[in-house]
């Protein structure tokens, strides 16, 4: 009698693949779908956890695009406060795939966000990235001018990337009802005002997220036909849910949907790879060892294990591995070495989502 399971390797069985493995030494969790070459230009975007990817890839010699570099003189911590060096442009965290799609559409004049300028205490904020100017700007016109220039750099990122790495963060978001504009945070959290007649909570479905990503991919490949994608799902649970569910149930739903979308995209498309950062951090065999005491933030060990798994497949043979961020600016911008310091935890990365904790009773 033969069974289709009889000749499968040990990694295919839970007992030998997981139960008998230690989370720090487990191998074979990830097999790359395609090679990332040293000369490839890498763009990164996504939710808070994605911030670790750019830093670590630069440390390992990969060419990560930094289309909007920080001015000389800003120390790395201050630069981060202003949204520099976190992703390939200053678009800040992109939690929902619809947000990513809308950003790309806006960059090419195919979408116009509604209610773009938020106000707080006489200062003005870009509603699509309200965290990148800690003190806001002087006027709504300044916000619009900054955004127009930012979109130029977004286009340069989209058109120059060989590999686009995106970390799925949330299914939950806040939208402008009339236009469908998705905001990275609820109006009224950092700036702006929440108006239930204008804004609404939205929990994106599998189908919506799947279709949004395919729409983004189509738009991007139209401008950049050879670009490849690498998807991950953030292991960081929701800080808060606006759904009717318990936050644990809501988190499970959210991450399950995102994981399922990423899986389907991976199985259906040869240009889309999936990297299991979610599984590395949250699988039962870790027994929570990769989370901080709040059971939400990923600790440095968790980040290190995620990146170690990634680099076990994507490895460059370089004498001095740290690379300089790739500038797309056509003038000589002073080049600086990438900050060589890892964030201490996921809480240390810039994360609007974490601000919701202040509303907990």
């Amino acid at each position, binding site marked *: 009698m033969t069974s289709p399971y009889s000749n499968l390797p040990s990694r295919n069985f839970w007992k030998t693949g997981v139960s008998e493995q230690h989370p720090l030494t487990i191998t074979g969790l990830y097999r790359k779908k395609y090679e990332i070459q040293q000369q490839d230009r890498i763009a990164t975007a996504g939710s808070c956890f994605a911030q670790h990817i750019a830093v670590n890839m630069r440390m390992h010699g990969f060419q990560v695009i930094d289309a909007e570099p920080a001015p000389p003189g800003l*120390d790395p911590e*201050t630069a981060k406060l*202003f949204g520099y060096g976190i992703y390939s442009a200053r678009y800040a965290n992109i939690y929902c795939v619809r947000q990513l799609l809308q950003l790309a559409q806006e960059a090419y004049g195919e979408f116009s966000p509604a209610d773009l300028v938020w106000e707080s205490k006489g200062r003005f904020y870009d509603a699509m990235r309200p965290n990148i100017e800690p*003190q806001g700007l002087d006027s709504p016109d300044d916000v619009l001018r*900054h955004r127009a220039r930012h979109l130029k750099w977004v286009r340069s990122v989209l058109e120059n990337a060989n590999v686009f790495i995106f970390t799925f963060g949330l299914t939950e978001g806040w939208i402008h009802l009339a236009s469908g504009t998705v905001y990275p945070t609820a109006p009224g959290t950092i700036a702006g005002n929440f108006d239930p007649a204008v804004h609404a909570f939205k929990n994106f479905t599998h189908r919506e997220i799947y279709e949004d990503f395919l729409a983004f991919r189509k738009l991007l490949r139209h401008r950049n036909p050879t670009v490849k994608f690498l998807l991950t799902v953030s292991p960081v649970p929701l800080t808060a849910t606006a759904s009717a569910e318990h936050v644990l149930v809501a988190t499970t739903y959210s991450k399950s949907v995102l994981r399922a979308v990423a899986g389907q995209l991976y199985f259906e498309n040869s240009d889309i790879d999936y990297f299991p950062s979610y599984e590395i951090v949250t699988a039962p065999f870790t027994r929570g060892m990769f989370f901080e005491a709040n059971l939400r933030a990923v600790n440095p060990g968790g980040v290190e294990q995620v990146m170690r798994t990634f680099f076990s497949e994507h490895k460059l043979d370089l004498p001095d591995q740290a690379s300089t961020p790739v500038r797309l600016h056509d003038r000589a911008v002073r080049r600086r070495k990438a900050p060589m310091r890892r964030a201490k935890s996921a809480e240390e990365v810039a994360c609007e989502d974490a601000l919701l904790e202040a509303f907990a009773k």
Partner: protein
Amino acid sequence: MKNILLLGDSHLATIKLAYDAAHTNYPETSVSFLGLRGKHINALNIHNGKLWVQNAAARKMIFSNRASPVIPLDLAEFDQFALFGMGLNVFRIVQMYKNYRSDEHRFQDEQAFVVSRECFGRASDGYLRMSKAVRLGELLATQLRKPVFLCPQPMPTKSLLQGEEFSHLSLGVKAGDEDSLARSFQDFATTYKFENIELLPQPPETLHSSMFTQEVFSHGSVRLTKEFDRTHPGDDHAHMNAAYGALVLKNLFARAGLS
């Protein structure tokens, strides 16, 4: 008798010439000069209360009025210190302005990154703090616990705007950004605080406008060499002459209480 050490880059020549012409006015002060031109200045370091020059090439280039050997120089014998130039200059702001414009700037160039005023201000401050003058000054003040005076490099003369390298500044000045750029530098000068350090602004009577020195002060500026026998080329817009140095020196000695 008070001992003061004047440290500087090529701009130290201005001060040395002025001092040579006026030293009889300061009979109770012993003045030591130590300078290094250009990038050699980066080889200067202070460790355990001594001044070191960290590479052999730079050591060969040291200008000093002290008897050899001068390095390592024990700094304990000095009562006060003054640092000239050493990267504390408005050029840092101008360099940043080449690629970054704040909301305050009127010359907006499609190729430049637009940043908030707050961001530009914090970057300017940080960039000036990275200058050799500030870093060395803070080491001196911390290790020696004696007064340190920082004398910034003079503002350039307006002939600077004729150079291709500064075409962006020329357009910016035409658009009305001069005061704003000068203010970024002045803001640092007025807000910088460090125990035992005083930053002495450029004498106002030497200025043509907020970020340019009067052309007359650049005529006949001399290179920092042992013989002081080589002048800067006619199109030099950064170095000033002994007349300028005399005003800086007068200001410095007054602030330092030297006679």
